[in-house]
């Protein structure tokens, strides 16, 4: 189990900077997820850690050594690929054991390790099969088994669940989490799915265009996003972002969203927000924090009315779409409480969970 440090890591491909000088510190046994949209540089970063890509600038430290010039096989890392990358001409046992055989481990040791990994993954019965005889989920397990038997210092996952169907993905997510509990190895997990990142990781690194937007544990990422990008990326459905006019009235900051709609910022944030009075800012609030009218629990709760334009019942909640200032805004309400489409309805905005975003910097006004 090793720690990993990336220092000012940079990667350029033919003049295009894919990774622009990032710094990450991963502790031993930590499960870190790299998330971001396609092309943000997360896979490139992972491949640099693995040694499959050369580093243009900066350092990669695994454990206590700088591994920039160390071959992948000597970095003590194991990798699980998006397309499983199983050796097609070898059966499951051979796929899992080949690396060990080449490192001259004893037959007994190899069998023991393979058996142990197979037991964890539930693939004991598949040992004789070839990859093409396995289902997607089974292949993914074998790929993980191949990584587990290596007892590496670091596990690297490159979007391992992207090729599985939705149900399988949810299942495998839980499996991976359980495996991490058992095997307790440092993990770097790349995905474009923020749900995977949230559910699996100890810490999440959100990347965008080669740079890190924010590094934080899941809950903190959710509660206190640092930038508009992170705010919109984490959480499904996405946070509502509504242009507003900030106004100061006495000791209260108001956010004017629409001709007939204005919401008060929580009193405690007066000092934080009042410098922005008179400016046009972005008001961010997650759908789960716009509900049907409820008894106020905190002083930040505030009621307003709006016309329902679309309803999307999910069973547990109903998504309510309303129009504010020309934008479609999404809220979540208990199914029985919603009015019909087109009708007017009362909502409660739970303003304790609001964010104010500066449109010039796209940063969230910091509540620290």
């Amino acid at each position: 189990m090793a720690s990993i440090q990336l220092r000012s890591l940079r990667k350029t491909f033919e003049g295009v900077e894919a990774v622009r000088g990032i710094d990450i510190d991963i502790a031993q046994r930590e499960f870190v997820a790299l998330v971001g949209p396609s092309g943000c540089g997360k896979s490139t970063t992972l491949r640099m850690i693995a040694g499959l890509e050369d580093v243009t600038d900066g350092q990669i430290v695994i454990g206590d050594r700088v591994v920039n010039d160390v071959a992948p096989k000597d970095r003590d890392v194991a990798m699980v690929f998006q397309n499983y990358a199983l050796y097609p001409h070898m059966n499951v046992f051979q796929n899992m054991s080949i690396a060990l055989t080449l490192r001259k481990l004893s037959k007994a040791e190899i069998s023991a390790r393979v058996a142990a990994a197979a037991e964890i993954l539930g693939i004991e019965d598949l040992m004789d099969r070839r990859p093409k005889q396995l289902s997607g989920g089974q292949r993914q397990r074998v790929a993980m088994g191949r990584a587990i038997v290596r007892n590496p210092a670091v596990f690297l996952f490159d979007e391992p669940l992207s090729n599985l169907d939705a149900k399988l993905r949810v299942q495998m997510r839980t499996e991976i989490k359980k495996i991490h509990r058992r095997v307790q190895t440092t993990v770097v997990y790349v995905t474009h799915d923020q749900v995977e990142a949230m559910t699996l990781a100890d810490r999440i690194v959100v990347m965008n265009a080669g740079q890190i937007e924010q590094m934080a544990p899941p809950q903190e990422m959710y509660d206190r996003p640092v930038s508009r990008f992170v705010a919109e990326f984490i959480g499904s459905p996405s946070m509502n972002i509504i242009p507003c006019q900030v106004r100061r009235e006495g000791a209260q900051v108001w956010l004017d969203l629409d001709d007939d709609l204005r919401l008060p910022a929580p009193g405690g944030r007066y000092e934080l927000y009042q410098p922005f009075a008179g400016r046009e800012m972005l008001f961010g609030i997650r759908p789960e924090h716009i509900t049907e009218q409820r008894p106020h629990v905190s002083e930040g709760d505030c009621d307003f009315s709006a016309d329902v334009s679309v309803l999307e019942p999910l069973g547990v909640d109903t998504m309510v779409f309303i129009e504010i200032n020309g934008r479609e805004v999404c809220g979540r309400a208990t199914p029985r409480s919603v009015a019909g489409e087109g009708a007017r309805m009362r909502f409660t905005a739970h303003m304790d969970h609001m964010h104010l975003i500066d449109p010039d910097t796209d940063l969230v006004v910091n509540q620290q």
Partner: protein
Amino acid sequence: MIDVASLRRTKTILGYLFVAPTIIGILVFTAGPIAFSMILSLFYWDILSPMKYAGIEHYRWLAEDPVARTVFQNTFVFGVVVVVLQNLLGFTLALCMRNVLNKYFRFFFRSVFFMPLLMSGATVSVFMAYFFNTDFGIVNYYLSIIGLPTVPWVSSSDVVLLTTSIVYTWQHVGFTFILFLGAFSTLPTEVLDAADVDGITGWRKVWYLYLPLVSPTIFFASVIGFIHAVQVFDHPYVLTRGGPGDSNRTAVMMIYDVAFKDLEFGYGSAVAIALFAVIFVATMLQFWAQKKWVFYE
């Protein structure tokens, strides 16, 4: 309205019309001749005098003729040697190309290896004969300079078949090279990456990964390569006209001698049929053997 019936009719008419010239041509110049060959092999004929029935006399003679035995042996050995060399060179060169990233270098190497294929086997043999000439040849000259004994490339019956193999392989390396270049470009890169991380690198990577994964191509190259090699004529003919003795004589040369020099068209046909049979059997054997070592996705 689209008239389906008349569309179908037009397709049929056009179909026959379009394939007619080619099919007729194939029947006249390929299928027909094959049948005729088989029949001809059962007769004595020299075009000038009438045909005389021979039965399987020609085949019996083939089985007993010592020249035929040498010739077929030469042909077979040549085929095997050439296929092995071609595959070895083509595979290793294509593998090396994976490390050449500069596109000018790639163009250079690709062109150089491919170029000899564009030449005539006869032409190549003409200048290669000068190269390998026992007395004035350049190869022997350099050998003697380094202090190594000169080799009677074209004058010794023990060596001359090897010389022909070398010349033929020199010219045909581009064939397997291109085949393997194509095959390597279709390998799944993720699997190769996984191997790097797992520790399968260097020669092990070649043995455990590259070889099995391109085994279909090796099979294809071997089958086609053998079929072509076994039909060789230009190189041994131009190099030494088959000599010394019969040591450089191949099956097709024998057909040429028998049919067009001795005017024994019947016997010549028999030799041709025999060669075809050898090719056919060898190919079938290779197909059967592929289950053992060829891996298909």
